[in-house]
């Protein structure tokens, strides 16, 4: 979290900071604040002290006349820094206790107004995503998704549409695809919709992956509507995927599961603390099966959700901590969204997560002109697009690195460690560990291969 720290150093220092002819630096007034990474590019600023214009007035009132004193004994100095998101409360308390010159610590929120929101036009296109993911470099390393099964757990895939839009063949593994009970339809032949977008986006980095079509969001089980399903359908889907994984030979075991969906509202859930709750409860059967499938060797990715504070989806009904349930599972990667200009989209959900606090894990690209599956001229958007983009990158890695050689937990660590960090203190709740970085991944895999040789 970016913060402003108000200090009251010696009057001499305050006078120097207030004097425009004297260059002053953050280190002059605020070196060694424990737990704060100071921003030395930000010159300290002298701030006047508000004082009531008449005796007995309130110095902090906005409704009374005030005068402002820049006298060195009255004024203070503000510097900028960053505190780790998960240490803010303790660090702020410690700061005031450890340093008598610290007057207060304030939030320094982003004031940019140009974050991409739902309804905004596309930022770049899928070829930009291809370039940013360094797909030619991945391909040169043999990392193209060959031999990897990539399950798209969504609304179904229309393979002919994906093929026509991409201009390349698309492989759908009919034998290992799966429909929930009551859903008819042939794998790869569902109406063009959200799942088709996900398939298209997953193939950007892993064009040779074999898609498993798992349309759980088409379930018409009681309680379902046109494009939703029930969590029980996802449990059944994951049980099927476990069979798929267990049938793979150990030497080529590779199953990537992309999930661009979640639960928007606590309305249908038991409350947190109830033993039957889903959102906060690692013992819920779906959270158990996610952990079990990951432990068996699958790479599982979930969209972080579209409940970011700057322009949240109108369906978001959790009052806080909107990354819930398996979308915040410690054994899955939770994927936030950035546009192709490298800025977080305003709707990308921020952490902390409910099952694991450090969510999202990383960000990937979204809101670009891609499949067009959501409508003519509509961008591939939401963390719904970011998740399969990242899943494609994971599938590309799996072409040469089966899960028996590089277990899912290690691959998750690799993605976090190589991510392009967007803050000064490592992890933050907007970008997670940063933006997925294919060049960093390639370099890390080369080092690993050299060490193993």
């Amino acid at each position: 979290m970016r913060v402003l720290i108000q200090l009251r150093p010696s009057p001499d220092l305050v006078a120097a900071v207030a004097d425009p002819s004297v260059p002053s630096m953050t280190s002059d007034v605020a070196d060694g604040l424990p737990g704060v990474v100071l921003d030395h590019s930000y010159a300290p600023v002298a701030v006047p002290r508000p004082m009531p214009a008449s005796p007995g007035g309130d110095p902090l009132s906005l409704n009374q006349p005030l005068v402002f004193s820049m006298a060195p004994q009255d004024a203070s100095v503000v510097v900028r820094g960053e505190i780790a998101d998960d240490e803010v409360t303790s660090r702020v308390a410690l700061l005031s206790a450890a340093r008598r010159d610290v007057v207060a610590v304030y939030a320094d929120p982003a004031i940019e107004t140009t974050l991409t929101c739902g309804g905004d036009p596309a930022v770049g296109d899928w070829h930009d995503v291809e370039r940013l993911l360094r797909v030619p470099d991945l391909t040169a390393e043999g990392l193209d998704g060959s031999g990897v099964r990539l399950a798209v757990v969504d609304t179904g895939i229309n393979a002919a549409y994906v093929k026509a839009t991409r201009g390349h063949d698309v492989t759908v593994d009919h034998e290992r695809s799966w429909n929930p009970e009551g859903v008819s339809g042939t794998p790869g032949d569902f109406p063009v919709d959200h799942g088709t977008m996900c398939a298209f986006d997953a193939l950007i980095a892993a064009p040779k992956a074999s898609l498993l079509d798992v349309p759980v969001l088409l379930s018409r089980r009681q309680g379902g509507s046109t494009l939703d399903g029930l969590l029980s359908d996802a449990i059944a889907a994951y049980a099927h995927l476990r069979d798929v994984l267990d049938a793979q030979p150990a030497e080529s075991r590779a199953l990537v599961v992309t999930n661009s969906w979640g639960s928007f509202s606590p309305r249908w859930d038991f409350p947190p603390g109830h033993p039957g709750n889903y959102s906060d409860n690692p013992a819920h059967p779906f959270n158990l099966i996610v952990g079990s499938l990951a432990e068996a060797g699958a790479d599982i990715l979930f969209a972080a959700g579209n409940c970011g504070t700057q322009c949240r989806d109108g369906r978001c009904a959790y009052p806080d901590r909107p990354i819930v349930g398996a979308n915040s599972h410690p054994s899955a990667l939770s994927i936030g969204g950035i546009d192709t200009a490298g800025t977080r989209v305003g709707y990308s959900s921020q952490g902390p997560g409910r099952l694991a606090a450090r969510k999202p894990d990383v960000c990937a690209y979204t809101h670009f002109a891609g499949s067009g599956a959501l409508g003519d001229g509509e961008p591939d958007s939401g963390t719904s697009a970011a998740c399969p983009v990242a899943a494609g990158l994971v599938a590309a890695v799996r072409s040469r690195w089966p899960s028996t050689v590089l277990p899912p937990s290690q691959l998750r660590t690799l993605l976090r460690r190589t991510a392009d960090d967007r803050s000064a203190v490592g992890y933050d709740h907007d970008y997670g560990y940063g933006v997925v970085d294919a060049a960093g991944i390639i370099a890390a895999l080369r080092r690993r291969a050299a060490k193993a040789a």
Partner: protein
Amino acid sequence: MAKVLVTVRLAAPATLEGAMRRLGLTEDEVDTGYGLVPVDPGRNLYVLRVTEEAGRRVGDSDAGAADGGPYSDPPIEPYGPPR
């Protein structure tokens, strides 16, 4: 909440009928189309979808025969496009 989930531990070969017998459930109380779904084969853990009333009966009390539950079965929706 029309239906809920309960978990049960069963030795192989596990069947829906065996689970219903263990939990004392009737066909009217169980989503037989959903069946008996393995959650964690290593722990012999399975899940069923049942009526809320049946879920409370077999899962909630100490005397309940289920391993766990009743658990929620909330709707899930696509995360895009943002509305």
